[in-house]
């Protein structure tokens, strides 16, 4: 508490002594309200959407520094991040659903790994992020695996000039980035490169010993390289954009504190290319999008004799279409075909592949002025297990136009079995069916403006149901995936953003509270004692509180998060403690001789809390990162 008071005083002093403060406009503050949400397939502002949409803008991301994507999400959203430590995996639990039931997209292209069905947030270089959008739409909008929802990640291409930055911090952390861009009204070209490395050799209390021993994490190093090139060319009624992204990550895999794996390493390498041609012909907008992704995932553990080498190739072609018939009727459609293949030593070097075709319709209908209806339907055809049909109905009603909107969404979901589920030697199950489910949510979004204060509130209740869930169940010696899991999840989320506008500063206070009751459904096997119990590693309660201060050249953020206790067994007997953590950042920007410079100081885990998100995977204590940046 003493630290917290000191921090508040520091922020207040900085805001007063600032002499170069400039007034923030109301338009800036409300900008997010007006962004068209493309990811829901119907481009409408957030307030008009039928589902919850959360946005994290570039300003909030920049205050987080080149931190991890996981860290940004856990500070600014109600997602629960299963964090295995800085060189470990970080996966998502959205609304009680599992990691493979939320899909991650970049430029609309899916990044979840087809072998596992999930995405490790730590493989995305957060320093390249420019925006994050989270929505809860289901399979009729996004296809397979959106039972929890989806996360859209943006990298910033609209940059002109040159910029370099250098960071140094605790535990041998160094991060370097450079970018250059040029643009005219007809074209854009951007190049970004980044190198990030850290030893992550922090001290932790080894509670497997008595008394608890102070030890240093080892084999915890990470090195990430990333290069992204984007180009855009506009024509009279069309535009073409394309980009190439190469990434490479090497890291040690230290294992949990009581079964350390000191020789294990993992290498992730990818090359992604996209092309996007869009054309406007009268009221019709169409085009063609293509995506190629080559991804290697290699895990080597000499101690345990594991040498798992895998290469995934994915190719995708999309034809979107939008026809605006009138102000009240808009037809959106999408046809997609893709091919994925995997060669893996885990599959005894036998190539496994999957072809996929889908077609969907996502119209928008306004039967009356204040009401928007979002019916949607989609059919998916897979080469390995057949057809899945999904549909949904969404609605948005403006109770007070521009200020208060009610929304509703109900739809079906499905999730294709992963390659590992189907093809793992001997134990894979080729007879698996897709996971099935449905979900519904209703809530409201309000945006109220008073003199100098903007209050935005977003609240909803939700219910998710999963059946035929795929679970690798170990009963005796028979360990294989089966369609036996049912999950019932329901809860609520309330988010409040209060922005105080002043001539000298803008102060934004964000709060979020969520409750998630995610339980096991019907018994999966004789004697199953988990029915009705909370899912393991799924907190019921979460709370976030963020203060963001923008005062001329000084920007600052304090982010507090509280995550409730989680059960570590299906009997709901063993728990891991609730935890709280505070992250802090402050930056100062100035311009000298035409060069815009800045310095930023991030302190993560400010209060030096000792906690684990997943048992026996220690999280670093207080750590610092200082960043210098120069923009020309």
């Amino acid at each position, binding site marked *: 508490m003493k630290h917290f008071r000191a921090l508040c005083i520091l922020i207040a002093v900085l805001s007063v002594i600032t002499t170069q403060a400039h007034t923030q406009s109301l338009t800036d503050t409300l900008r997010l309200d007006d962004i068209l949400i493309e990811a829901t397939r119907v481009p409408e502002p957030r307030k008009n959407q039928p589902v919850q949409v959360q946005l994290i803008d570039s300003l909030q991301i920049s205050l987080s520094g080149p931190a991890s994507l996981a860290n940004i999400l856990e500070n600014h959203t109600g997602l629960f991040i299963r964090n295995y430590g800085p060189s470990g995996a970080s996966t998502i639990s959205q609304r009680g659903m599992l990691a493979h039931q939320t899909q991650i997209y970049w430029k609309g292209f899916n990044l979840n790994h087809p072998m596992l069905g999930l995405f490790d947030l730590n493989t995305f270089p957060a320093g390249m992020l420019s925006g994050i959008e989270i929505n809860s739409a289901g399979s009729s909008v996004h296809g397979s695996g959106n039972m929890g929802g989806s996360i859209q990640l943006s990298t910033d291409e609209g940059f002109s000039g040159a910029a370099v930055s250098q960071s140094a911090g605790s535990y041998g952390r160094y991060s370097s980035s450079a970018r250059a861009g040029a643009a005219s009204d007809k074209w854009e070209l951007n190049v970004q490169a980044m190198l990030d490395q850290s030893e992550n050799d922090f001290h932790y209390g080894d509670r497997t010993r008595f008394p608890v021993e102070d030890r240093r994490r080892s084999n915890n190093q990470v090195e990430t390289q990333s290069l992204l090139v984007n180009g855009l060319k506009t024509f009279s009624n069309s535009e073409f954009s394309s980009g190439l992204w190469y990434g490479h990550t090497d890291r040690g895999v230290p294992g949990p504190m009581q079964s350390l794996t000191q020789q294990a390493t993992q290498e992730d390498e990818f090359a992604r290319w996209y092309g996007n041609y869009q054309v406007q012909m009268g009221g019709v907008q169409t085009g063609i999008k293509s995506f190629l992704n080559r991804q290697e995932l290699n895990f080597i553990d000499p101690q345990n004799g594991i040498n798992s080498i895998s290469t995934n190739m994915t190719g995708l072609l999309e034809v979107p279409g939008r026809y605006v018939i009138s102000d009240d009727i808009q037809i959106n459609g999408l046809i997609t075909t893709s091919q994925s293949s995997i060669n893996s030593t*885990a599959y005894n070097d036998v190539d496994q592949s999957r072809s996929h075709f889908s077609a969907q319709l996502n119209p928008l209908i306004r039967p009356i002025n204040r009401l928007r209806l979002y019916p949607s339907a989609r059919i998916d055809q897979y080469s390995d297990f057949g057809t899945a049909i999904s549909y949904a109905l969404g609605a948005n009603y403006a109770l007070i136009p521009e200020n208060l909107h009610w929304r509703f969404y109900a739809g079906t979901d499905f999730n294709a079995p992963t390659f590992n589920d189907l093809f793992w030697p001997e134990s894979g199950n080729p007879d698996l069916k897709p996971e099935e489910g449905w979900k519904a949510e209703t809530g409201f979004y309000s945006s109220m403006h008073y003199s100098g204060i903007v209050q935005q509130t977003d609240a909803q209740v939700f219910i998710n149901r999963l059946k035929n869930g795929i679970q690798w169940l170990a009963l005796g010696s028979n360990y294989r995936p089966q369609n036996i899991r049912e999950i019932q999840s329901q809860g609520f989320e309330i988010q409040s953003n209060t922005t105080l506008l002043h001539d000298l500063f803008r102060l934004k206070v964000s709060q979020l509270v969520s409750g998630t009751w995610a339980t096991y459904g019907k018994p999966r096997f004789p004697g199953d004692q988990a029915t009705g119990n909370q899912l393991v590693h799924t907190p019921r309660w979460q709370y976030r509180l963020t203060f963001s201060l923008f005062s001329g050249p000084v920007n600052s953020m304090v982010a507090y998060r509280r995550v409730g206790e989680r059960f570590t067994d299906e009997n709901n007997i063993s728990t891991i403690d609730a935890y709280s953590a505070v992250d802090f950042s402050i930056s100062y920007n100035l311009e000298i001789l035409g060069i815009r410079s800045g310095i930023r100081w991030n302190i993560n885990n400010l209060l030096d809390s000792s906690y684990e998100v997943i048992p026996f995977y220690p999280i670093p204590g207080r750590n610092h990162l200082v960043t210098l940046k120069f923009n020309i």
Partner: protein
Amino acid sequence: MKYINYILPLFLLFIISCSENNTSDENGDGSVFILNQGSFQAGNASITAYDPFTNEVQQNYFSQNNNGRPLGDVAQSASLINDNLFIVVNNSHKIEVVDPETFVASHTINFDNELSPRYIESVGNNKAYITSYTDSVAILDLESMEVTGYIDAGSRTEGLAVSGSHAFVANTYYRDFSAATTVTMINTTDDEIVNTIELREGPSVVKADSQNRIWVVATGPYDESFTHNDAAVYVLNASDGSIIETIELNGGGGDLAFHEDDNSAYISSGGIRVIDMVDLTLSNTPLSTQSFYSLGFDRSVEPAIYAGSDKGAEQSGMAYIYDIEGAVVDSFATGIFPGFFQFSN
């Protein structure tokens, strides 16, 4: 993603190599300790203590008696040596040495990742053998509690039993996880290999009876549905390793426990089945049709067969106590994956 990608092969290894484990047997008048393996890499191995006289059950018995310290990852097996209980914690690369009366740990033998121990047995001369996920058997000096040497067995070593001056070690897997087929016979006096006995795929459980015989359960190969349907019990002459009898199980084969007063051996194979230890024949009628992860036998109160049943990797298992006619006389919850019964005497 990384974590899950590597946990899968490791977990598979864990499941297929430590499934249906060995148990300590026979008589006594004290407590029953159930070693619960826990979920692989979750660090939630535990001990359940059961008093057959009072039917009292205590969970997390190791942690309770050791200042809350967790036991570790994958409690695989245990052995009473020199009045101490040696608890083998496989994926924590250690052996906890506890007083079986108080369960207070007096020593922790850490192998610092060099060794993933599976079973330990005393072989006399103040030394013990330890099988492990290496291609060798480690020799432990029971005075210094340090490994003094290794015996190269050529594959990952699993079940271990000692009879007279010979130790028998199951060779279950090669390092590439293909099934091995042999049992290594070691002279415990000079630590030299004296015989390599060819059986069938997957020798795992190894037990010694009091009649100078070694019993080996070999799982056989996996069939198309990833199950074992060709397991057998081999009965070996402990003097030279020769095969006395091969008892076909015509199904899977798991844990084994002896009730020598009754000349009965209980085998987990599609339920609990009985082998006549004189005729070396398998009874046609199982004592129980329920499959179990582990078996043990104790007669501290009444002759009783202990059977451990798992409920997956994230849920408490159950222990069932059968009388020798096959009737359930008691049951109680255990920790996750009850894989080994240890009787205090």
